[in-house]
C-alpha cells in the first residue's frame, strides 16, 4: 500500500481554510460529533467482529465545538 499519496493528502488538508472558533455552531451540534453514539458503535463493532475478520478502526477526539 503506497502511503506517500495519503501523507500528501493529509498535509494538504491541514492547509484547508481554518474554521474560526466563533463559526463552530454547526460542528457543535451533537449529531455532528464523530462519537455521538458510542454505545451503538461498540455494539455494532461487537456484532461485526464476531461475523467478519476485520475490526475497529475508530479512534476518538477532534471536531465538535472546539471549546476550551
Amino acid at each position, binding site marked *: 500500500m503506497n502511503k506517500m499519496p495519503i501523507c500528501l493528502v493529509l498535509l494538504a488538508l491541514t492547509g*484547508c481554510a*481554518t474554521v474560526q472558533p466563533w463559526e*463552530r455552531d*454547526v*460542528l457543535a451540534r451533537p449529531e455532528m460529533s464523530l462519537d455521538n453514539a458510542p454505545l451503538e458503535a*461498540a455494539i455494532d463493532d461487537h456484532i461485526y467482529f464476531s461475523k467478519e475478520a*476485520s475490526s475497529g478502526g475508530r479512534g476518538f*477526539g*477532534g*471536531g465538535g465545538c472546539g471549546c476550551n
Partner: protein
Amino acid sequence: MKDNDSFNATLAAATCALLGSTVAAPVAAQAEDGGWSFDSTLLYYGESDNRVRDISAAVSTLRDFGDERKLSGTLTADTLTGASASGAIALNRPQTFTSPSGRAVYTTPADEVPLDDTFLDTRFALNASWTQPLARLYTVSAGVGFSTEYDYTHIGANLSLARDFNKRNTTVNAGVAWSQDDVDPVGGRPTALSQMLDVGDNSNKRDGSESKDVLDLLLGFTQVLNRTTVLRVNYSYSDSSGYLNDPYKLLSVVDPVTGDTLARVPIGQGPNGVYLFESRPDARTKQSLYAEVKHSFGAPVMHFSYRYMTDDWGIDSHTGEVRLRWPLGDGYIEPQLRYYTQSAADFYRASLANGTALPRYASADFRLGDFDATTIGVKYGHGTTTGNEWSIRAEYYQQNGSVPGEQIIGNQADREQYPDLSAVIVQFGYRFRL
C-alpha cells in the same frame, strides 16, 4: 456448549472499547457538572435457520467533573444461544459429530451445512475510562476493560493522547491498547489438525487454558474541512499472538475425486466421518486505514465511512458505510447502509482432500472466507421534553460467500458450499440524565 463467535467477539468488544469508542462523547445533552448521563440499549440479534440468537443489554454512564474531566463506564451483558457453521461441509447423508465436551454426539441432517452443537452462553463485560486535559490543547485518556464468559476471560488497558492544532481545527491522536485473553475450551484444547475422536476419548485434547495477547496501536487525525464538514482518518496496527485457533471449528476430510466426506465407523458413539480440528498461525498482524466524514446539509447530516484492512493471513477487506440523518418532527430518521467485502485467508480451505499432504495451517471457518456482506437498516430517534432521547433501530444483515473454484471437489459443486448468513437486528436505546 460454546459457540466461538463469542470467543472472538469478546476480544472485539474489548478492543474496540479499549480504543476509545465509548469515551469522551456527549451521551445525552452534556452532563452538567455533578450530573450523570446514561445511555442504555437492548439489542436482539437473530440469524435465520435457527442459528445464532443473541440478546444483549448495555448501560453506559458518563460523569462530567467539570473542566473537561470525565469518567465513563459501560456494563454489558449478553446471552448467546444457537450455533453457527462448524466448518465441516454438507453431505448427502446425515453426519454425526462428538460434542465439544466429549460426552455426547449431535447429528446434522443430510444436505445441510453442519452447525456446532447448540449452546447457551452468558457474557458480562465491564469497561471504564477516565479523560482529562493535560494542558490546554492536550487530552489524555486511560481505560481498563474486563469480560468473562464460560470459556473465556479478557482483561485489557488502553491509553491515548490527543493534541489540537490550528485553533482546534486539527486534532492528532495516538493510542495504545493491550489485552490478554484466556480461553479454557469446553472439553479441553484439541491438538491442531488432530482428528475428532469418539465420545469419551480425550486423548487429543489438553486441559487448561490457553492465552492470547493483543497489542493495538492507533494514530488518528481529525480535520475540520469547513463550517459544515469534519473528516477523520485513522491508521491502526494490531498484533495478536498466542492461541488464535477456534477450538470448536472443523474441516472435513474428503475423497479427492467425489468430494464426499470420508466415512468412519465409530466405536460406540462418535463421528461418522473424518473431521480434523482447525489450525491457525499463532501470530497475526493487521493494519487498517479508516476514514470518515460527517457533513451537514442544513438540518440533515450525512455520515460516510470507509475502512481498508489487510493482514498477514492474506485477508484484505473493504468496509463502506453511509448514514443519512433527517430531522422528523421532534425526532429524526436515519437510514443506514453498509457494505463489506473480504478476501479469504491464505490457509482457508473449504475441505481437505485425502491423500494430499496436510498443510500446516487450515481453517474452514466461514469468517475467514471470501464473502460480501450488506447491512440495510433504519433508525428512528425521538427527544423527550425532559431532554432525554429514545431510539429504535432495525437492520437486516446478509452475508454471501463463495469458495474458490479450485477448492470445490466433485459432488461439492451440487451442494451449498458456503454457509450464507442472514440476520435481523433490532435495537432499542434510551439516553437519560440523573
